[in-house]
């Protein structure tokens, strides 16, 4: 093995799991050289299996954990849970005695092997669960914002920086103080709203511009939601129906991650009516075969895929429809939670389900049928795709704020 050229050695090591690669750096100098090369790291990250983040549901267990399940979970027997790999553990997360609110908002985004965590009462955290590194993002709350809603996480291409876009509510405007009277119901509208950018490795939030003040969109489950997890396509983040301008403009919101500017884009006219009525139809943006598409889920057994065929002209075309006989659904139709989430898992296949339902379905868009049903007992499915990476990031080297709870990882 000593005689192997770097190329062949890289060919072996690039196929090893992340922990093994890291351990291999202690073998000898040439192994360290090969496994720290940026090309090697990129290749290694690209070869990691695609997984989905799941959360152990708090009501069922006393512990709270972030896990992953391998995708595509193609399990013909829905009663057997596919194996989970644990990433983070609540007990260990709260290493310094801080409690982390269990719940779905804890893992906000997943990008390039990095997770954005929201520890409820502290700054946002960027964490690489594979290399077990984490750091806090610049604090937005309590100053300068009374409240901050995360919008999206992206890689700013020109600088190579990872940034979190937030919508922040500032202090109340003085003239509104009197107008508010004692009602208290308009507290939300009278606050100054701005978009902020929190850069990993930065120290202060950067104010981007005034954010719109519009009624809070309503999530199909009845929860108030600010911003959906955006879909990145062509370096642009897209929010289909859950954003602050949705109800007033009936448009999709787009954020260019290079110029850091917003614009509104058309939605399929055929879906406009349905978009307003989130109780019967739910739309989720996906990137499918290089196209931006929206999966319109109607009831539990009907799905339509609209593709943005002409991105510049904003022309949407119906790509396909899949109808599944309700009788084939696991647990019967009455037990089925209306699907609200979708995740593209490979060429022509998407996984559909809901965060609050532990059954997800794999739809084959080419064959226009349901391929399988997956049961993940006791798990919340985040529909966040995850691919582990051991790529180093300078922002993990800078000191953390004292506010950050000490994260420990699953052993």
């Amino acid at each position, binding site marked *: 093995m000593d005689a192997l050229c770097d190329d*062949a050695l890289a*060919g072996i090591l690039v*196929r*090893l799991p992340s*922990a*093994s690669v890291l351990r291999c750096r202690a*073998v000898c100098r040439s*192994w*360290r050289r090969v496994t720290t090369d940026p090309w090697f790291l990129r290749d290694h990250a690209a070869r990691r299996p695609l997984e989905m983040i799941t959360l152990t549901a708090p009501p069922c267990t006393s512990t709270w954990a972030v896990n992953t399940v391998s995708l595509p979970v193609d399990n013909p027997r829905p009663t057997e849970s596919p194996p989970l790999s644990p990433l983070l553990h609540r007990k260990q997360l709260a290493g310094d005695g801080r409690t982390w609110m269990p719940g779905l908002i804890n893992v906000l985004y997943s990008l390039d092997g990095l997770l954005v965590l929201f520890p409820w009462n502290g700054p946002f955290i960027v964490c690489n669960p594979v290399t077990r590194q984490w750091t806090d993002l610049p604090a937005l709350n309590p100053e300068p914002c009374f409240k901050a809603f995360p919008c999206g996480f992206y890689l700013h291409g020109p600088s190579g920086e990872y940034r979190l876009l937030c919508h922040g509510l500032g202090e109340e405007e003085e003239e509104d103080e009197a107008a508010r009277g004692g009602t208290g119901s308009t507290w939300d509208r009278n606050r100054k709203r701005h978009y902020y950018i929190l850069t990993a490795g930065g120290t202060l939030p950067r104010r981007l511009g005034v954010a719109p003040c519009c009624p809070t969109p309503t999530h199909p489950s009845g929860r108030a939601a600010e911003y959906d997890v955006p879909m990145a396509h062509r370096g642009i983040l897209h929010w289909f129906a859950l954003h602050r301008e949705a109800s007033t403009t009936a448009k999709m919101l787009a954020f260019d991650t290079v110029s850091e500017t917003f614009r509104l884009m058309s939605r399929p006219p055929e879906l406009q009516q349905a978009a307003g009525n989130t109780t019967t139809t739910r739309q989720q943006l996906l990137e499918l075969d290089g196209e931006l598409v929206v999966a319109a889920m109607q009831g539990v057994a009907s799905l339509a895929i609209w593709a943005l065929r002409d991105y510049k002209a904003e022309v949407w075309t119906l790509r396909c429809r899949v109808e599944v006989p309700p009788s084939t659904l696991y647990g019967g139709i009455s037990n089925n939670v209306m699907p609200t989430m979708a995740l593209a898992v490979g060429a022509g296949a998407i996984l559909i389900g809901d965060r609050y339902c532990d059954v997800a379905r794999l739809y084959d868009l080419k064959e226009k049928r349901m*391929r399988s049903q997956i049961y993940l007992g006791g798990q919340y499915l985040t529909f966040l795709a995850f691919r582990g990476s051991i790529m180093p990031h300078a922002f993990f080297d800078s000191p953390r704020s004292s506010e950050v709870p000490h994260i420990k990882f699953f052993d």
Partner: protein
Amino acid sequence: MEVDKGKGEAEETRKVAEADRDTVTLKSSDGKLFEVSKEAAARLSTVLAGMIAGGSIDDNGTDLKQIGSEALENVVDYCNKHANSIPSAALISSSISFNTAPFKEPEEWERKFVDRLSHDALFDLVEAANFLGMERLLDVTCHKISEMMKGKSPDQIREVFNIKNDYTKEELEEIRQELAWAFYDD
């Protein structure tokens, strides 16, 4: 498939004359000739596919100076076995080609194929597969090697693979501290 053993040597003497053959002849660094299915070679090796398409295949034996006869015999053996096992249920059963599943577990015959190899033969095969651009064979051989590395400490890896430790004590300690957690896993 023990019968395949020594096939290369047998082929060496059998000179195939037809111009339009469905096999190609490969020559190892030590001058031994091996015959392999043209279809399998083109499908499994990007380098051989390029040579076949580009017409740079020599009927009297295409020179592969970087590959020794033992490794080339294994390459040819693998190609022929692969040709026989296709269409394999595991590889075509899925109508969806998931681009997210970069690696499919080795099949039973592939496992057996690499299990019988000595360490040296395995590494020579990796090098040959790498040279010939044989993605699947690389996956299968590297999978075997990664299984051999699993759960082993750097010391044990050095011992198993006969690698010289060229770190100083201080350097090693630094690396260990940097990645302390990685040494307790798998």
